């Protein structure tokens, strides 16, 4: 049985078919890359697997459990989808602290560790509104990994980052995968995909096809 099984998944929004009978079988503990042009459906696919949207047709099973019936979303999940979404009036640490209290599985130490791993300072008193684009993206990555999830869904995780940031994020993804996490990553950065992904899928016009990985 696949860890993630997407079966004939179709999503129609205001008459537009954004995902068109998508079929995927993804195994646990691997890194999967998703490539495709803007508007191809990558982000929508990630929303589907995250449980943020409901299908018009089809289904998603996570570890044998049906989304929107057995479970609302994958039980151990870290996501970066589109632009980061934190609270402007809170600091980086306060934002992660608020999120950590939703599930209540980690404490301050794990939050501080995650923030430091992405190259930010947990003591930084600046509110999120004052963060640069790169800082916001780093915080998003910290948010995704802080609870050591089994599944990481990362949409353009290196977007807006400098060289150091890109390097850190790539290393973090590999570390998380070594820990046992399954990683789905979408990126326009070809190097991200070629360095990280074991298997690649191409998304175009809402359809998903496996692609040969060029060594």
């Amino acid at each position: 049985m696949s860890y993630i099984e997407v079966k004939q998944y179709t999503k129609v929004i205001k008459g537009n078919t954004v995902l068109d009978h998508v079929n995927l079988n993804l195994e646990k503990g691997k890194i999967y890359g998703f490539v495709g042009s803007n508007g191809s459906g990558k982000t929508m696919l990630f929303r589907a697997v995250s449980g943020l949207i409901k299908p018009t047709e089809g289904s998603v099973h996570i570890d044998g459990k049906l989304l929107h019936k057995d479970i609302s979303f994958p039980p151990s999940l870290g996501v970066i989808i589109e632009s980061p979404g934190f609270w402007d009036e809170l600091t980086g640490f306060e934002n992660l602290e608020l999120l950590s209290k939703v599930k209540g599985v980690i404490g301050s130490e794990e939050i501080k560790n995650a923030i430091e791993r992405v190259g930010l300072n947990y003591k930084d008193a600046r509110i999120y509104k004052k963060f640069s684009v790169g800082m916001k993206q780093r915080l998003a990555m910290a948010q995704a990994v802080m609870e050591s999830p089994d599944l990481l869904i990362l949409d353009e995780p290196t977007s807006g980052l400098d060289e150091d940031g890109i390097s850190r994020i790539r290393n973090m993804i590999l570390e998380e995968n070594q820990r046992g996490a399954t990683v789905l990553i979408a990126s326009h950065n070809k190097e991200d995909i070629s360095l990280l992904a074991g298997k690649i899928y191409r998304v175009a016009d809402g359809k998903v096809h496996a692609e040969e990985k060029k060594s």
Partner: protein
Amino acid sequence: MNYKILVNKKIWKSWWIILPASLFVSYYYFNNMDLYNGMAGGKSFQLGELFLVMYGSLEPGLIKQVLPLLMLLYPLFLLVYYLGNDIQDFYKTNAKYIFTRTQNRMKWSVIYLLRLFISIIVFYFIQDIGTLAVGLVKGARVSCGDFKILFSVFLIQLAAGFFLLLILNLSAVLLGMTYSYILVFSICLFSFTVTGLISEYAPGIVEFTKWLPTSQFILGWHQENFTFAFTSIYLLVGFVILITAFLVLTDRMDIY
């Protein structure tokens, strides 16, 4: 050059708002002109007169009659500016991090409704401090009865603000910000206009105006046939319907 950029497409796409609004206002001015000139029904008039009355004339003396309405509405305009898309913002930005950690959407919808209500309290507290300051500086006498009135006014302000922002935030989630602003503005304008027209031209059915939403928020309009008990029940029913609709909608909707 691509001439498509010369016209904002939103204008064309909004013809179904612009045209009915124009029809409504033009008809209003037509009736006004008829009465102003003392003309009975059936007597002809020049088309140019309608255009002049509607777009080319304004009695300076009438301006001050508009000011009371604008003064009453400006705090609501500010409130809408600050809080009109508060809940929609949450669902567009923060929600993806929350609802991949918990399925308890209702809890977070309630948190944000509470945030909305608390923000309205703070807004009107600051607003009323200003009014209080002017009163005290100008030497207004103060008694216990005044505080009772202040408190009643404060409660009505909160109710009005919350009612308006609930409609706005709920419709924003469904329709988007632009159309929700238009919807709320239209409701207010329609409600006040109908009240004014009935009071002037059909005073026999003035009791009907107590059913209009904006009437609930004018303390001075409450009397024998339009009691505070009626307003309380009206608003309570309204809040229950709006909050229930909001919670049901946000519980089921996709998060983008």
